[in-house]
């Protein structure tokens, strides 16, 4: 016979590891976070996406108990960070936006210090720190002072610093800020690899869409303290672009030896009208000799056939999936409309 609280615990553990309910934070008149509801499932990589000053960092600070919410509740690993911050911080690793290390200590010493603060003995801490430094590729630099580390190295050391306590959740606040593109790629891959290896839930905040798109299972779009939408990128895109989820770009070559402009324009008009007749195409427009067709279904083949049947040269045909960029801008447009 399992008692009720135990069942409840099981349910919440399997369900969500971070649970925010009606979370609000006000600074005087300014509302940084406005009635935020969010739940993050165990083991997933969640991207918190929003422009600077959207309240991402404030939300993260409240999850760690580093600042208290004005109202609402936070539950992280079944603990309330406002009343038991130490318990939460034992299970959650946090990499702040600009991670700082003691510049006059070596990378190894910095890591060992963190490990000791987590209650490890010096021996275990050193062993573990060395293993982690090897893992993140700083094995050769472990005895170099962190003051001499490059930005990317510091960030990687930050990741090791987060992982050394064997966390259940890691929260990364703008982790790729200021790293070069190749470094970003490598760093994100490292995060994913490590989190999959150790089954860690990852919460990543960023204003950079592509990175989030690359690695996150689900994203939440966060603007001005409010969560506008959550879901995986496909769902978000189909929700937003419900009427026209597909966009096809058609590149045309010079049509049939027609040299004068008027005849060329007529040819293009002919092509446009023939594409419009295809079932599923909602609109067609032309810019600089490229045609854009918005479609409700995947009708790329039919479009190609239609173009060729008019006798035009088809030089390229691109189906565009909506990325976070479009989602992002669509939301910002929507947001500005409200004002």
């Amino acid at each position, binding site marked *: 016979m399992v008692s009720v609280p135990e069942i409840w615990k099981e349910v919440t553990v399997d369900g969500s590891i971070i649970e925010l309910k009606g979370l609000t934070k006000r600074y005087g008149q300014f509302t940084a976070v406005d009635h935020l509801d969010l739940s993050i499932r165990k083991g997933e990589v969640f991207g918190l996406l929003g422009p600077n000053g959207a309240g991402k960092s404030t939300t993260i*600070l409240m999850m760690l108990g580093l600042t208290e919410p004005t109202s609402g509740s936070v539950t992280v690993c079944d603990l309330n960070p406002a009343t038991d911050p130490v318990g939460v*911080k*034992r299970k959650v690793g946090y990499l*702040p936006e*600009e991670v*700082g290390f003691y510049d006059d200590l070596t990378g190894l010493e910095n890591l060992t210090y963190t490990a*000791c603060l987590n209650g490890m003995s010096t021996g275990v801490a050193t062993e573990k720190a060395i293993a982690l430094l090897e893992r993140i590729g700083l094995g050769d630099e472990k005895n170099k002072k962190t003051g001499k580390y490059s930005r990317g190295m510091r960030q990687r050391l*930050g990741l090791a610093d987060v992982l050394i306590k064997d966390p259940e959740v890691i929260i990364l606040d703008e982790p790729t800020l200021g790293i070069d593109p190749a470094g970003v790629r490598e760093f994100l891959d490292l995060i994913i690899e490590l989190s999959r290896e150790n089954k860690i839930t990852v919460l990543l905040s960023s204003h950079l869409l592509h990175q989030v798109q690359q690695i996150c299972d689900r994203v939440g779009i966060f603007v001005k303290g409010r969560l506008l939408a959550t879901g995986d990128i496909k769902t978000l895109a189909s929700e937003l672009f419900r009427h026209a989820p597909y966009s096809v770009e058609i590149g045309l070559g010079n049509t049939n030896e027609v040299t004068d402009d008027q005849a060329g324009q007529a040819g293009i008009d002919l092509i446009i009208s023939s594409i419009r007749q295809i079932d599923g195409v909602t609109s067609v427009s032309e810019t600089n000799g490229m045609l854009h067709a918005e479609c409700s279904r995947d009708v790329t083949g039919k479009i190609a056939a239609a173009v060729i049947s008019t006798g035009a040269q088809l030089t390229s045909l691109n189906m565009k999936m909506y990325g976070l960029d479009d989602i992002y801008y669509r939301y910002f447009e929507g947001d500005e409309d409200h004002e």
Partner: protein
Amino acid sequence: MIFITAILKEMKTMNDLVSALSKRWFGASDRKMHPFRVIVRKEMSDQIRSWRFIILITIIALTCFGSLYTALANMSHAVKPNDPEGSFFFLKLFTISDGTMPSFTVFISFLGPLLGISLGFDAINSEHNRGTLSRILSQPIHRDYIINAKFTAALATISCMLFALGLLVIGAGLFSIGIPPTPGEFMRMIFFILLSVLYVAFWLNLSILFSVLFRQPATSALSAIAVWVFFSVFYPLIVNLITKSLEPSASATPQQIIAFDHFRLGLMRLMPNQLFSEATTTLLMPSVRSLGPLTMEQMIGALPGPLPLGQSLLLVWPQVTGLIAGTLASFVISYTLFMRREIRPR
């Protein structure tokens, strides 16, 4: 040759012993340490390795030995026949000077604040500026560990340093004078060092308070130094101005004169350095019986003799309490400010 190898061998065994002991005491490999101890240990090692500590300790050691030198040179003039303090010969080491160089106590009262300020002025804000504060606070420790550990570490460093210096002075004195201190003298010196630690702790806490208040280490250092300069230079001037204007006339009653004197002393005692110098004088000069005015009535029948240690301590108790109160007040303010602050990364 045999002699050298013997010495080397001896050194090796000593080394082994020291490393074994340090392993045991500082729990090197397989013992878990409480996070608070971890922070204190790191802070202490940071301070001891820092340049400013090395510079300060050099300045303080140099001045101390300078004053010790003048004290020793003037020792022979200082001892007079029928001096009630004659039996407290050793204590003069700390108090006498020939006027060219201040005595040990004056040096401590002057350089102590500098020491305290320099160890505390960037305690919190430099952590914040380096971005380490939010990283450390996201570890499973209570927030007050940071500020408590900073205070404890600095205080421990200061105590070690002052005790080492004080005992060195005693040792050097012992060598050159050749007369060992009596137990009473020794206790007085220990109390004097404790008092100095307390005095430096006051300035340490004040500078920690400024380090919580101001984001820039330079600002907090400057404000702490400003307070120090104010108390050691301007405040006595201000008190002088006030008391000059209120000075009772020559025909005033004794009660008026006494009341005026109490008032003047009360104003002076708002200064931490005044409290410290009164307390040290009483401790190191056993013949001092009162720190305020004494009437003839009180003096009649008193034998000119030194006070026992207990009585001297009783006499300075208000001063010590004042220093402790000041220390606690600034600590409490910085503690509450720090606990309430929202810790944002840089």
